[in-house]
């Protein structure tokens, strides 16, 4: 992965802030900047997978707001896009009946 195992400064900031704010039992931070045309080393587009008990009882919108709140300064600054998957530990451990991926999003027909 570009930037080494821990990634660049933004990746480390995202990791640290989400850890402090949400005490996740599982956390993944993915740098997608190169997929959006960014040069090597760019840190503008990220995806995060956050598993935290803080999300219990909260609908998706509220979960995502918690994540955004933790990264408010970054999102107001150089962090341009943030994909979020937010699960409770129970959801993460269980085996839900997740439907298969919608076909149109997996390939272009035009």
């Amino acid at each position, binding site marked *: 992965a570009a930037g080494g195992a821990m990634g660049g400064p933004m990746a480390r900031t995202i990791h640290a802030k989400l850890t402090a704010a949400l005490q996740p039992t599982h956390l993944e931070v993915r740098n997608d900047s190169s997929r959006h045309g960014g040069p090597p080393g760019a840190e503008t587009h990220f995806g995060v997978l956050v598993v935290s008990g803080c999300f219990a009882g909260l609908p998706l919108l509220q979960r995502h707001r918690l994540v955004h709140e933790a990264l408010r300064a970054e999102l107001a600054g150089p962090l*341009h896009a943030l994909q979020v998957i937010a699960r409770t530990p129970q959801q993460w451990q269980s085996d839900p009946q997740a439907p298969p991926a*919608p076909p149109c999003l997996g390939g272009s027909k035009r």
Partner: protein
Amino acid sequence: GTMRAAVRIGWRIGAAAALRGRAVRPLSQAAGESGGSESGGGSGSREAVERLVREHPVVVFMKGSPAQPLCGFSNAVVQILRLHGVEDYRAHDVLQDPDLRQGIKDYSNWPTIPQVYLNGEFVGGCDILLQMHQNGDLVEELKKLGIRSALLDAEKDQEKK
């Protein structure tokens, strides 16, 4: 585990969807884009945004248009709605209006575009719409708006495919 696989599929779809966007503008270009109107309230004011989100049961604030999305995440929203047969909705291109672009973020207290509003209520961005699509919530929310998802008909009338 299957859960992890399912989550990763969803995550990758989101990432793959990001690649679908056509003519993605370089960030420096997007940041420096003109339009720079000095108007204070105007199109980004709370009142103006309120009018827009209530204009139609389904309102989307995006980059580009449904015919030509300019961002993979916005494209994902368009594609999901299309899967459900929702083609009649209001779409606002925030790239055409810097005041609206900031105003919609202030209104929803949400930092990114696209933003989806159902019945005047903010439901989330691309990630949330995708998850709602995958877990069946979107079909239910559309039903509450009196919109019958095309996916229900697809299940019934397989011969139409």
